[in-house]
């Protein structure tokens, strides 16, 4: 918090956010100028996509190459390092795909589409701020911007009953978690006199080693706040309900872009030097990760609602990612485990989004909740769709040679590298558990007779599904260069 002395460089660095903000106003503005009359949805979507494209381009152009330190903007409020670049990129790309889903899903298209688009983009903006912030209050602002937009996005569903319930649950619990988080921040401030994570890195070590209870208390609360956001058990209870109640494209967005952003910020906090000194904290996190994987997988095992299954699967994957995050923490922020976390997030986002996209295609109307058994016959009526869905599911289950496998490979190998063999073992056992429920939709699709169909006109979503499937295979097979790029930019 030195003198507010910023110039063009700051503007350039933050240009993705600024541009995104400006673009987010476009659909709303047009709607207002048209006298509160919705314009053609396609036009809105195209505007949004252009905005996202520009944002993505700017992220790439002004993003960090990783060499020679990471630039910060606005007096050290926002940092633009490899982590920011990659996580932002994933979030933006995922949002683009989610927007296409929203355009075609029955529960999201309709008279309030422009508003939805605005909210989506603000949420993304929040995510970008969350990712880039190295100031806890910045993190909080990003988090809230992201979450508040989401609450509304959920509540705006055309499905009237359970989406409202989901929104209210998410809102109450989310706000409470924000308060907890903030309470933690206040204690960190109280013990270190600063809320910058850069300062935190410097000051944390002596405090933790000196067993400063207040600091640890605050720090733990901050971590709990994050755990809530990324749905780590036992703070995950909202996840299945909210994911199920939200319109599928919004769920997809929530489960991928939002989670990626939250994890990126989580990573930044935990990567602080000196966390490694706190055995208690890291041990506890390990347990949380293991519990999360297990809870997510066993609960998914007994689900029949496809969306809920995927929600629990998302919980389980949080556990895997947390394992990587812990590895980052132990290694005190070295690039390799961080890169494996990023790669895993990338893989996870693509395959989860893909799965939700398929789900979105199958939903007939906003009140239709797809049960796994309903998929019967999909392989006959839509072989390509079934094949792509299988790719997503196999990838989620971690079968080679697709992204999910390499993600797990890198993640586990990072964990083993940091001596977390037992966690890797748990992860492995869990991935066997998960195979069972990931296989179930495939069983139903291919091996049971039925008449499942999808609406044919959803070209955009279909396109997204196919592209994602191809990406998952290609980025899996050529995962080496990708991983190298990520690691280089982080190191």
């Amino acid at each position, binding site marked *: *918090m030195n003198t507010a002395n910023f110039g063009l460089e700051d503007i350039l660095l933050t240009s993705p956010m600024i541009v995104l903000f400006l673009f987010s106003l476009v659909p709303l503005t047009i709607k207002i100028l048209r006298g509160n009359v919705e314009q053609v949805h396609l036009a809105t979507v195209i505007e949004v996509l252009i905005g996202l494209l520009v944002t993505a381009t700017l992220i790439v152009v002004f993003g960090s190459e990783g060499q020679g330190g990471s630039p910060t903007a606005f007096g050290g409020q926002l940092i633009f390092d490899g982590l920011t670049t990659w996580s932002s990129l994933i979030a933006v790309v995922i949002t683009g795909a989610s927007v296409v889903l929203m355009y075609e899903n029955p529960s999201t298209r309709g008279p309030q589409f422009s508003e939805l688009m605005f909210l989506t983009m603000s949420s993304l903006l929040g995510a970008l701020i969350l990712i880039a912030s190295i100031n806890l*209050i910045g993190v*909080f*602002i990003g988090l*809230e911007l992201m979450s*508040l937009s989401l*609450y*509304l996005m959920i*509540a705006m569903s055309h499905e*009237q*009953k*359970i989406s*409202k*319930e*989901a*929104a*209210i*649950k998410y*809102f*109450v619990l989310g*706000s*409470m978690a*924000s*308060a*907890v988080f*903030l*309470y933690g*921040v*206040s*204690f960190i*401030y*109280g013990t270190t*006199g600063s*809320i910058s994570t850069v300062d935190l890195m410097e000051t944390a070590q002596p405090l933790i080693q000196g067993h400063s209870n207040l600091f640890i208390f605050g720090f733990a609360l901050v971590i709990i706040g994050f755990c809530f956001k990324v749905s780590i058990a036992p703070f995950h209870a909202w996840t*299945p*309900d*909210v994911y*199920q*109640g939200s319109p599928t494209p919004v769920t997809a967005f929530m489960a991928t872009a939002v989670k990626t952003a939250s994890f990126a910020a989580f990573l930044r906090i935990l990567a602080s030097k000196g966390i490694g000194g706190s055995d208690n904290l890291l041990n506890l996190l390990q347990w949380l990760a293991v519990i999360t994987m297990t809870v997510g997988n066993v609960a998914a095992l007994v*689900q029949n*609602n496809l969306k*809920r299954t995927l929600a629990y699967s998302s919980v389980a994957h949080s556990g895997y990612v947390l394992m990587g995050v812990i590895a980052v923490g132990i290694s005190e922020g070295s690039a390799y485990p961080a890169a494996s976390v990023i790669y895993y997030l990338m893989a996870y986002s693509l395959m989860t989004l893909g799965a939700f996209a398929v789900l979105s295609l199958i939903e007939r109307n906003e009140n239709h909740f797809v049960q796994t058994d309903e998929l019967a016959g999909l392989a006959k009526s839509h072989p390509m769709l079934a094949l792509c869905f299988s790719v997503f599911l196999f990838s989620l289950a971690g079968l080679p040679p697709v992204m999910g496998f390499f993600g797990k490979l890198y993640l586990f190998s990072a964990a083993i590298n940091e001596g977390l063999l037992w966690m890797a073992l748990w992860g492995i056992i869990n991935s066997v558990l998960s195979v069972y429920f990931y296989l179930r939709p495939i069983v139903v699709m291919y091996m049971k007779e039925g008449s499942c169909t999808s609406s044919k006109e959803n070209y955009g979503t279909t396109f997204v599904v196919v592209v994602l499937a191809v990406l998952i295979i290609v980025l899996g097979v050529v995962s080496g260069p990708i991983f190298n790029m990520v690691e280089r930019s982080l190191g």
Partner: protein
Amino acid sequence: MPDISILTTITPNHYLVLSACLFMIGVAGVLLRRNLIVLFMSIELMLNAVNLSFVTFSHSFGKVDGQVMVFFVMTIAAAEAAVGLALAVSIFKRFKEVNIRFFEHLKG
């Protein structure tokens, strides 16, 4: 004679304890009350507890940045309240009900 300075002199610790109490009251409210509006109020209470704590620390450090944070928090709390109330209104309009026990359809 017992030392009653603890009762007579108000130190930052007192504020912190008060803040913790407020926070816990907020938590208790969230956990126990059924009315949505009361729930919102409890959350606001928690945020205000945070604010109190920020101010206390800020004061004891003799810096203003903590107090600046309070402004941020207040702003966001306001936004949150707005969103929350909007949700509550829309729900009430549809269901004529703000008891949260009404919302238990999503489970399992």
